[in-house]
C-alpha cells in the first residue's frame, strides 16, 4: 500500500516535471533493494503507464508535431533496442554507475537551468 502511494507521488512529481524517470529507480534501488536492471525494468513499465495517462491530458491542449514524432520514433526504436541489449549485457555495478552519472547530470542541469538558457541564447545569437 505504501509502495502504491509512493508510486502516485512520484508519478505526480514527474507529471509536474520534477524528478522524472530517476526517482522510482532510486526508491527501488536504495529503499527496496531491487537490482539495478530490474529496477530499470519496473521503471519502464511505470513510465509507460504514467506517460500514457499524462499524454491523454496533454494531447488536447498541446500541438504535437506528429510527422517529426514518427521520424524520431522510427530511428529511436533502433537505439532503444540496442541500448536495452547493452544494459542486459553490462555488469550491474557498471550500470549502476552509469545510472548514477545520469542522476548527477540531471540534477546539475536542473540547478543550472537558468544559466544554461542564457549561455544557449548567447551562443545562438552570435551564430545568427
Amino acid at each position, binding site marked *: 500500500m505504501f509502495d*502504491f502511494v509512493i*508510486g502516485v507521488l*512520484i*508519478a*505526480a*512529481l*514527474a*507529471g*509536474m516535471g*520534477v*524528478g*522524472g*524517470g*530517476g*526517482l522510482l529507480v*532510486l526508491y527501488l534501488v536504495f529503499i527496496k533493494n531491487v537490482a539495478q*536492471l*530490474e529496477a530499470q*525494468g*519496473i521503471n*519502464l*513499465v*511505470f*513510465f*509507460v*503507464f*504514467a*506517460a*500514457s495517462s*499524462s*499524454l491523454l*491530458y*496533454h*494531447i488536447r491542449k*498541446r*500541438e504535437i508535431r506528429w510527422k517529426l514524432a514518427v521520424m*524520431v*520514433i*522510427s*530511428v*529511436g*526504436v533502433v*537505439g*532503444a*533496442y540496442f*541500448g*536495452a*541489449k547493452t544494459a542486459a549485457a553490462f555488469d550491474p555495478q557498471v550500470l549502476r554507475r552509469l*545510472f*548514477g*552519472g*545520469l*542522476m*548527477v547530470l*540531471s*540534477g546539475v542541469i*536542473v*540547478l543550472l537551468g537558468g544559466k544554461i538558457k542564457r549561455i*544557449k541564447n548567447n551562443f*545562438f545569437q552570435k551564430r545568427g
Partner: protein
Amino acid sequence: MSITPIIIAGLGAGFVNGLLGTGGGIVLIFALNYMLKGEKNKDIYAFTLCVTLALSLVSLFVYARKGAVDFTESVRYGLAAIPGGIIGAYLLDRLNGKIVKKIFAVLLIVAGANMVGIF
C-alpha cells in the same frame, strides 16, 4: 530541417532509454530545443513524452525477454502512475514547481554521486 540531427537525437534518446530505463527525454529536449527554436516548452515536453513512450515500449520488450521485469511489482507501480500522472499534468499548468525541482535536483545529485561511488 536537416535529417542528421533527427537521426542523432532519435538514436541517442533511444539508446539512453534502453540502457538506463529513463533519460531519453533529456537527450530529446536538448536536441529539440536546438532544432525547434521558438516552439513552446510545453509542446516540446508533450512531444518528448510521446516519443519516449514509444521508445520505452521497445526497451520494455527487450527487458522482458531478458527476464528483467517483475510484472507484479511493475503493475502495482504502473497502476499508481495513472492517477499520479493525471494529478501531475493538472498541476503542471497551475503550480510553480521551481523550489520543489531544486530540492529534488539536489536529491538526484546526492543519490547519483553515491551510485557512481563518489561516497
